């Protein structure tokens, strides 16, 4: 296979993740959001598998498999059930409107391209463009965490951010501990988030709207 095709496919997949990050940003329904996230994780898994193939790094297949099984299936299904049980599947409250958020997101993608491309002029083309895409996914995940009020969508934002980090780590050729870092921690974080924070918040507040928590500022008691 030519180098050109290998690059094109990995860029296509990484670009797909950026696109899906935008899709996450404009979802206004919980079920749609979770579906978009599952797709995000699916594309990540494909991208990691492709990296494993072209870099000839079989251990990355582990990351790819776990991304597929865990992030694309188990977590979305579990979150979906939680959302259904809490009856919050209808709408997602946003802090800022969708239009400005998308525009801001476009700005962030522009920023990450502008930052990464000149910096990595001397490294290989694969790493630099993947890195630009990965940074975009990370920044869009951050944006989503800021613009959503609901705990579940904040977690989705954080997990999409985590996907961006895995994309960056697998794009960095030959980086040691990638499997350990990415897998162990995405599992641990997801476990903790779902198992404890959500559970406790529901137990105490009967809502997962973070806004309800904001009544407390620590100073007026």
């Amino acid at each position: 296979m030519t180098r050109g095709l290998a690059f094109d496919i990995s860029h296509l997949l990484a670009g797909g993740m950026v696109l899906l990050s935008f899709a996450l940003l404009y979802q206004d329904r919980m079920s749609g959001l979770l579906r978009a996230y599952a797709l995000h994780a699916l594309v990540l898994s494909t991208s990691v598998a492709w990296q494993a193939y072209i870099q000839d790094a079989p251990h990355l297949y582990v990351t790819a498999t776990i991304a597929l099984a865990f992030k694309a299936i188990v977590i979305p299904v579990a979150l979906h059930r939680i959302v259904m049980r809490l009856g919050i599947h209808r709408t997602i409250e946003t802090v800022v409107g969708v239009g400005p958020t998308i525009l801001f997101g476009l700005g962030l993608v522009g920023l990450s391209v502008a930052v990464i491309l000149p910096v990595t002029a001397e490294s290989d083309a694969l790493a630099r463009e993947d890195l630009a895409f990965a940074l975009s996914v990370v920044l869009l995940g951050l944006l989503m965490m800021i613009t959503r009020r609901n705990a579940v969508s904040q977690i989705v934002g954080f997990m999409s951010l985590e996907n961006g980090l895995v994309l960056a780590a697998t794009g960095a050729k030959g980086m040691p501990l990638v499997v350990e870092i990415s897998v162990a921690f995405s599992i641990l974080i997801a476990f903790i988030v779902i198992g404890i924070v959500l559970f406790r918040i529901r137990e105490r507040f009967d809502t997962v709207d973070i806004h309800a928590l904001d009544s407390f500022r620590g100073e007026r008691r």
Partner: protein
Amino acid sequence: MIELTPLNLLGEAIVVAILVVPALSAAVLALLPGYRLSARLNVAAAFVNFAMAMVLFAARPTPGPYLLVDDLNVSLIVLTTFVAFTTSAFSASYIAHELEIGRLTPTYLRFYHAMYQMLMFAMNLALVANNIGLMWVAIELATLTTVLMVGIYRTHEALEAAWKYFILGSVGIALALFGTILVYLAARPIMGQGLDAMAWNRMLQAAHGFDPVLLNLAFVFLLLGYGTKVGLAPLHAWLPDAHAEGPTPISAVLSGLLLNVALYAVLRFKMLLAANADALAPGPLMVAMGLVSTIFAAFMLYRRRDIKRMFAYSSIEHMGIITFAFGMGGALANFAGLLHMTMHSLTKSAIFFAVGHISQVKGTQKIADIRGLTESHPVLGWGLVLGVVAIAGMPPLGIFMSEFLIVSSTFARAPGLALLLVLGLLIGFGALMLRLQGVAFGPPAGGRAPVEASYVPMFAHLALVATAGIYLPDPLVRWFQHVAALLGG
């Protein structure tokens, strides 16, 4: 290749042991019922850890791809294990009371002790990690364990504090991972693929050849990422809540140790940048963030109504001062920074010990409801006065000395910055004295129940701080000077 001596082998065994002991204790404590036994076991495990860490001064392991003990981290390991030990002793008396008033149940206590040892494990691992990926993993683990501990009281406030800490902490940790990946990318062309390109000691030797622009970008991410964990403004928002709502022993460990560990990570990367002539000087960034944190936190000290929250802001102030000192760089400022790190750890944890006892006897954390402590509880009250006087930077205590060194070394190089720093220090000083008057003196208010706790941990720390202000042993001075030279400009 360094020859293996018996001392090397002993060192290697010790490094593994300071990781295995807390990890095993965590597992045992998670299973043990009965809080008296687990509290004692917690203290014992922490003491064993401290004793083993002392041995590291004499016996060093050979640096491997994963673990490294050098002059910089060994003093921090000893400090960390020491404060962890005294805090576990304080915690033993503190939690007995919490159990009595029903704020914690035995099941939660089991969880609490296990998490305490997990935190020790994570902090030790972060300090001895040579691999920058491993260091990241350790700091992430430390964040997660403290998130769980902050939320342990399960009140509205505690849950919000834990959530805020979790979100901001994860964002910080994500930025730090991105920075770590960038450092690897910068190292790869020189070091080749694989473990060497993430081993800090190898990278330091080859850092002069790294791509400077990539390193610069990486440092920005690392400073913002780990800086969130240090509590530098404007990324500090999690810190006051986490300190105020968690159990007080955890506030002591957070302020005294975890903030230091995060700053230590920043210092490691600063040294990498300093070894590369073409990379941007990391100093000014750190100076700016440190100065902003100091001045901001000093102003914020005035309007606090919760006593733990007030001392949390004071921690932000002091982490700002330390970051400022390391940002200035040079032998004297680095020396002062190291000294300040040590003094702040000891003093702030002593203050939190006092505050823990105070909030228990008074049944409140509100500053307005705590009055006349020196009259109602003389020992506790004067202990707090001594601690606050020390943290405010009054001579002749230890913090005065380190602050004096920072200010005087800065005056020689950048008088404008020194003036700003002095301004921040004075504003903070005023706020602390103002609050101290109400809390410690005047007619007593609130509960008068006697304190059923040991004052030993608190006064041990205060005695060390007072001694350090008057007399620093010669070997310690030489040690800090040596480490300061390692840290470079």
